[in-house]
Each structure stands twice: as C-alpha cells, then as structure tokens.
C-alpha cells in the first residue's frame, strides 16, 4: 500500500514537475536528470529531465528560484524555490559547472571546468561582462563580503586565483596545493578555506594576496565545504577518505568525523538545522546525517553520480528580506 501511495505521488509530481513542500533536489550528474526526494518519507518521489550533466545549483539573489547548471547544454534551469516548479531556462551560459552570485547580488559567476574559463556576468539579465580563459580546470568559487573579488580554485594546476569582478582582471594567482576544489570565505572576510582533493586536508589562505596562513589535516581527498549556519562550524567532505568532518574555524580544528562511504561530495542542511544531506557519488545515494549525533541515519537511492543537493524552502519569505543564499561552494550571506 505504501508503495502504491508513493507511486501515485510520484506520478502526480512527474506530470506537473512540482515537488512536495519538504522536498530535496539531487542532481544526477551522469544522467540528464534530477531527483526529487521527500524528506519526511525519505524516498525518491520523482525524477525529472534536465539538460545534460548537471553538477551544481544556486539560489537567485531574490530568493525565489534555484538555478541548476546544465554543463553540456550550456544553460540554467530555474525552479521555484518553494515548490520546485519549473520557471525558466537561461540559455548561453557556457559550461556552468560551478556557479555563484556575489553577496550584493550584482554579479553572477560560473566556472567552466571542462572549457577552462571563468565567466563573469551582470546578474541582472545574465549579461556577460567578461570571459577569462585560464588553464587548469577552474573548479569552485567563492566571493569576498563586499562583492569585489571572486576566488577560483584551479584543480589541475593546483592554484587559487582571485579576479576583480568589476574589471575581470586577475588580482593574483598562487600555487596552493594538489587539486584544490571547494573554497569558502569565512564570515570574518579575512580567511579563505581551500580543500585540497589531492591531499589530506585544507589550507587557510589570506584573501588579500593568497598567502597560506595555515593548514589542517582532515582526511584524504578533502573536497567541499558546507556551513553549519552558526558562522563558526563548517562541514567538509573528504572524498577519498569517505568521511565528512565538522570543522571549528575559530580554533581551526576537526571537531568530529562521520563515515560516509561512496565518495561524499556536496551537502545541504535541512531548514531546522538537524540534518546534513550528503551526496554519495559512487553509490548513487544521498546520505542523511543526524548533526547532533554525527551519525548516518539514512541513505536514499537516487540516480547515477549524484552531485549537487538542495533543500526546497517552502517557508521562504522571498522578497520580504534577506534569506540565506546558498551555493555548493558553501558561500553564505
């Protein structure tokens, strides 16, 4: 009977493209689809088509939409942040592998991982301000608080580069370690954390000049960050180690680890702050972690190579004040 109910729900939403209020989106990067999961029943209730090879997603500055980057078809699919309903397709965004809006909402930046360039757009109308060709697999990006600079990790060349958003000029580019991926600016705006996927930890970088201020061992294949929401603690996925670490950025230490097999990657937190959802790329699942206990409480089947994950926000007060805008780089504002 339960299966029948789930199938019925799935059929309804498959035809409308609308998700339930407590839905979670997971991008199946090796398929042309995204899964819609019911958080309460912890089952996949629908799977919808989306371009080709979707990897990451981002909330628009007005908090009304979440944009999915379809890398091979060079477009963004906009979904209603509350319902998951399809709103629009933004074309001519070339290879939008990783993407983000500057904190002031004026700039939209994409890292074209496959095509080796960084594109800086005026967020209003997605008008291209400048394309910066840069060797080395531009991977993930983050912004400074005053929206002047975007920081981009270059996975192949092992560098971190900073670009002026207004002029699109290179400010600096420094060697940072092997295969840097996730990058996040801490709330003090004075420290960048960069995850080194080819090593076993992260480095702390001065955003002014790229100088390495420190490092922290976390686990092999340190990859991506997600803020816990208190401005101090961050989650970090260690892909090769198969763990997620909880970091205290004040003391710069690992508070705890949780084992998540299958190449853990992107993360998001439920709106009540109780659960961390982590995609398990290899196992075609998304893991649910009880944050208080730092323990996996569920692992939900999805599509092939799940990458980005996102909680729909049914209670979003879009247009009535600031909300937490998120990207898979772990940027917060």
């Amino acid at each position: 009977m339960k299966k029948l109910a789930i199938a019925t729900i799935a059929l309804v939403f498959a035809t409308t493209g609308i998700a339930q209020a407590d839905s979670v989106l997971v991008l199946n990067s090796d398929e042309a689809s995204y899964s819609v999961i019911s958080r309460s029943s912890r089952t996949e209730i629908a799977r919808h088509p989306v371009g080709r090879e979707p990897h990451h997603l981002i909330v628009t500055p007005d908090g009304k939409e979440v944009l999915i980057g379809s890398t091979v078809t060079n477009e963004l699919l906009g979904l209603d942040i509350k319902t998951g309903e399809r709103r629009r397709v933004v074309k001519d965004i070339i290879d939008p592998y990783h993407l983000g809006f500057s904190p002031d909402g004026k700039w939209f930046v994409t890292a074209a991982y496959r095509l080796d360039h960084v594109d800086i757009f005026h967020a209003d109308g997605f008008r291209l301000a400048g394309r910066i060709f840069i060797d080395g697999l531009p991977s993930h990006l983050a912004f400074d608080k005053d929206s002047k600079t975007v920081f981009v990790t270059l996975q192949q060349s092992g560098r971190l580069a900073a670009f002026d958003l207004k002029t699109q000029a290179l400010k600096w580019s420094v060697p940072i370690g092997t295969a840097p991926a996730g990058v996040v600016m801490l709330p003090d705006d004075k420290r960048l954390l960069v995850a080194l996927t080819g090593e076993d930890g992260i480095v702390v970088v001065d955003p002014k000049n790229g100088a390495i201020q420190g490092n922290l061992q976390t686990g092999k294949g340190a990859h991506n960050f997600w803020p816990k929401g208190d401005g101090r603690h961050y989650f970090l996925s260690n892909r090769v180690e198969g763990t997620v670490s909880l970091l205290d950025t004040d003391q710069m230490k690992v508070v705890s680890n949780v084992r998540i097999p299958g190449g853990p990657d992107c993360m998001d937190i439920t709106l009540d702050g109780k659960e961390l959802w982590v995609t398990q790329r290899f196992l075609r699942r998304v893991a649910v972690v009880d944050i208080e206990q730092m323990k996996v409480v569920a692992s939900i089947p999805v599509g092939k190579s799940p990458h980005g994950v996102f909680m729909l926000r049914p209670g979003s007060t879009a247009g009535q004040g600031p909300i937490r805008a998120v990207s898979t780089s772990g940027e917060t504002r």
Partner: protein
Amino acid sequence: MRDLIDIWVGAQTWIFEALVSPLLFRFGLMAWYEPGFNAVEYVMLGAIQILVIAVGMRFFERRWPLEKPGRDDRLIGVDRVYTLLNKLGVVPLAIFIVTYPVVTHIELLIRAWGYAPPSLERLLPWLGDNALASFLVYFALYDFAAYWLHRAQHAFPWWWALHSLHHSQRRMTVWTDDRNHVVDDLLITLALVLFAQVVGVQPGDYVVILMVGRLVESWSHANVDVSFGRLGSRLLVGPRFHRLHHALSTPQERHIQDHNFAPVFPIWDILFGTAIYDERNRPTGVDDPTVDADNDRGWLAQQATVFWRFARAMIPKFRRATAL
C-alpha cells in the same frame, strides 16, 4: 532492481577504492577520479560480457552449431585473445590514451563556438519522462552512425586493409566480434565518441549502449543455427543475417559482403537497400589469399602484418614497392 544496482555499485566502489583510487591519489591524478570510477564499471561490464559469451552464447553454439566442429577450430583461439583484451579494457585504455587529446581538442573547439548538443528531449518532450524510449532513440542514432561507418570500412581501400582482418576469420564464432586491428578500433571509437558527443548521448546511456550493442554483435557472429523468426530478424540483427555479411564471395556473388552491414538494427540495411534475407548457408572468410593468411598468425603477428597492409594501402610509394 534497486538491490541489483546496490550490489553492482557496491562492488564497483569497493574495487575502485581498493585498487584505483589509491593510485590516482598517490600520483596526483585526482582530475581523473570520476573517469577512473567509470573505467572500473567498464571493466566490470566487460567481465559480465565475457561471462555471457562463454557460458550463455557458447551453450547455443555447442547445442545448435551451424558449422560442425572440424579442423579449423584451431583458428578460434586468437579471437578469444581479442575478446579478452577488448572486454577487459586493455585495448580500450590504449585507445583512450591516444584519442583523448584529439577528442578533447575537437570538443573544446566545437564548444568554444558556442555549440551545445541538440537535446532530443527538447524536440520531443515526452522523451524526457520516458527513460527507456529516450535510451532506444539514442541507441538507434548511435547504431545508424555505426552502420555508415561500417559501410565506410568496406568502401575505402585503406580502411578495408584494416577491416579485412575481421573478415578473414573462416571459423566465425561468438568470439569473432572483437577481432579487429587496434587502428580500426581506434578510428571507429574516435568517430563514434565524437558522434555521441555531437548528438548528446548521456555518459550513462553510452555505457549501456556499448554493453548491449556489443553483446548483440557478439551474438550475431555466433556459429548457431538459430533464427529470431521472420519479424524478429527484421528488428534485431541475428547470426544468420550477419553471417551473410561475412560470406566468402564467389563469382556468382562477388559483392555478397556489401550487404547486411547493420550492427544491431537491420532497419538501416532495409532502408538503404543493403539487406538480404535468405536461408542459405555459406562459408565465411575472404577470397584474397594474402588476407586469408591472417588465419595462420597470432595476435601480435596479425597486428603487425595488417598494419603493414594498411600502410601500403595508405601510401602509394609502399604500394609501388610491393608491386615490384
């Protein structure tokens, strides 16, 4: 179904994390982390294919053979080597290393022009919600390209110089499908990968298309007296249909091998007038003694002599030297 997927990806993850991931990590090759994981799946699928061929298809060959066991059975051994090298990823890995820079360069060039593969789901929205239909459409497109490439293998003398190795086998069996020169494999792979990218075949679909397609092709080379029936043999290429393509040409049927080219779906031969359906059993092989001599060689000697044959066909100077 989900249980099967869990077992499959569980095994794939275990192999990857135990054998491949430490090497990639150790040698700073983390940009190849995802492709490395997919390569493990490729090898696993190859092992499954070998199992299906060795156990399943061979059962039919033993039970209902078309050609009875005989002296030429010794010719089959080298085809088993081809199958192992191909299915277990040795030849594909070598081809990947050679073709990757070329494919990447072309892909980047095309995409730098702003080209994005057309999405069939946009033209036919219902495809987006029907995974099986979508897969079959892409499979058909892929097979269409493979049909024309196969015709090209027969049409161009330099390409035939390579492809004739495949046709030289007088004892055609389930192992014969992989009997190809590595340069022939390389050219076909290059063309089909580029085609798949231009058309927009999903990486996940591509693996399944390869898997299913190659199994059908192994079966179509089987030495069996089994038919799919009148309708079935027009939907899927079977052993009788493909055996005609390998038939030894005779003065009465000089161009018999210029028929039944389709790898998986006979519809292409039917549409383009190259299909022949008849029940006659014909011997297989080639009527050129220099090509037939491939049968007396092992894998390495075949690769060397066929490459020389290819070089002579490609370069006029070599052709003249041979004529003298």
